[in-house]
């Protein structure tokens, strides 16, 4: 058991025990440990990858959503604009129609008034004629003697009656 001469007994036991230790630990310890470590690392890696992928998908989704929202907004605007135009057009149409109707009514009224006046004038003329005949009858009856005066009177009457 000198310091520098290896003992055969210790050599023997060291080979046996270290060898056994190597096989036992390799089979029952290092294999499950390194496998679990590797498994866990791949799990962590895949989880990280998944998170990154999800993040990208989320970003994509968000962009999509924004696009959709913008589309909806523009569509709403176009619908609103269309509706407003339609309403405006409707109002304008109605106004135009009303105008036309009013004009038509006015025209009709004017026409009927014209007719009325014509009728009135005609009846007035008849009246005047009757009146004149009456007057002439009376004048004739009273001043039949004076021929010139009679004529003059008739002429004046006729001229005056034309003023209407």
């Amino acid at each position, binding site marked *: *058991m*000198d*310091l*520098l*001469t*290896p*003992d*055969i*007994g*210790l*050599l*023997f*036991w*060291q*080979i046996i*025990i*270290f060898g*056994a*230790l*190597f096989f*036992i*630990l*390799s089979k*029952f*310890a*290092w*294999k*499950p*440990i*390194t496998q*679990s*470590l590797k498994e*866990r690392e791949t*799990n962590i890696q895949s989880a990280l990858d998944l998170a990154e992928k999800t993040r990208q998908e989320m970003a994509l989704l968000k962009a999509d959503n924004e696009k959709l929202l913008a589309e909806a907004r523009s569509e709403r605007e176009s619908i609103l604009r269309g509706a407003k135009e339609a309403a405006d057009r409707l109002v304008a149409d109605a106004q135009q129609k009303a105008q036309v109707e009013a004009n038509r009514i006015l025209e009709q009224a004017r026409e009927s008034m014209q007719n009325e006046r014509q009728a009135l004038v005609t009846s007035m003329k008849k009246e005047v004629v009757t009146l004149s005949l009456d007057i002439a009858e009376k004048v004739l009856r009273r001043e039949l003697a004076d021929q010139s005066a009679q004529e003059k009177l008739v002429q004046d009457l006729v001229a005056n009656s034309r003023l209407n």
Partner: protein
Amino acid sequence: MMRRLFNRFFVVTSLFLSSFGLATAQEHTLDGQETHQEQKEKFNVGEMIMHHIRDDRGWEFAHGVTLPLPVILYTADRGLEVFSSSHLNHGEVYNNYKSEHGHLYRVNEAGEPLKDVKVYDFSITKNVASLMLSAILLILIFRSVASGYAKNKGKAPKGLQSFLEPIVMFVRDEIAKPNLGPQYEKYLPYLLTLFFFILINNLLGLLPGGANLTGNIAVTLVLAVITFFVVNLNGNKHYWAHLVKPTGVPVALLPIMIPVEIVGVFMKPFSLMVRLFANITAGHIIILSLISLIFIANNLGGSATGWGISLIVAPFTIFMNLIELLVAFLQAFIFTLLTSMYIGSAIEDHHEADHGIGYEGPEAH
């Protein structure tokens, strides 16, 4: 040769350390044979340190508290023999066997050693017992860790599992992956076993009464030889080609370089063996020497001096123990790292093992 050199170095060191003890022992020679004997036994620092860093037949936890361990012997004539180490205490003869400085001899009836009987000693010594203990501890610890992975599947690690997981991942990510490349999984079990085996035995060795297992040349030899085989049995054609035809070396230098490369193949595991052994043993020697200072002072100037010196020595010892704790991790790391680097250099696919000093020109890189 090497052994003699180291022994001489050790003798010089222990002589230096024990010179105080010897000097005082000589002073006391006049006081009588009994005192002289007692003093010498008490203060032989070299002996004390050697006793602590060497293997032993029994496991001495404290002075006088020894756990006897089985002695297993094989001799050609008697076959296998098993008996308790307590029968061999203090040089006693049992079954015609006698233990002297750790070596077992067959002795005859008169007590003279029979040198021609070869005794193969497979005893469960203190180191072997510690080795078994560490193996059982490792299996228990990592079984529990492995079951933690089954139990906490898909959850965060808990308890022992979360304590050891970073170390396992350190070995995998910092030692195995960078040096071995994509083939690291094949060698990872060996590297992990190596790392935790060295680490737990370094730490057990630091405990009071612990065995100096990783500071034992037999243990580091086996580890280094396994690494040697793993490296050379897995070496690809580039590795072997590099050995006989180093890239970028002028032809004139090949007669020098080829032997250097071949020596390097054996030098790498040899350096692994010596590095671990010397680091751990040296650490133990330093701590034991520091503690010995207290007893030397006690012997020189009485118990008051001993107490005084211990106040100075204690912080140093604590400091050294902390350094040793660091060394325990460091040496486990270095042994594993170098092993993976050697394997990596043997299995790497590309041909640029000359680390950019070759003549391939700038366009090659």
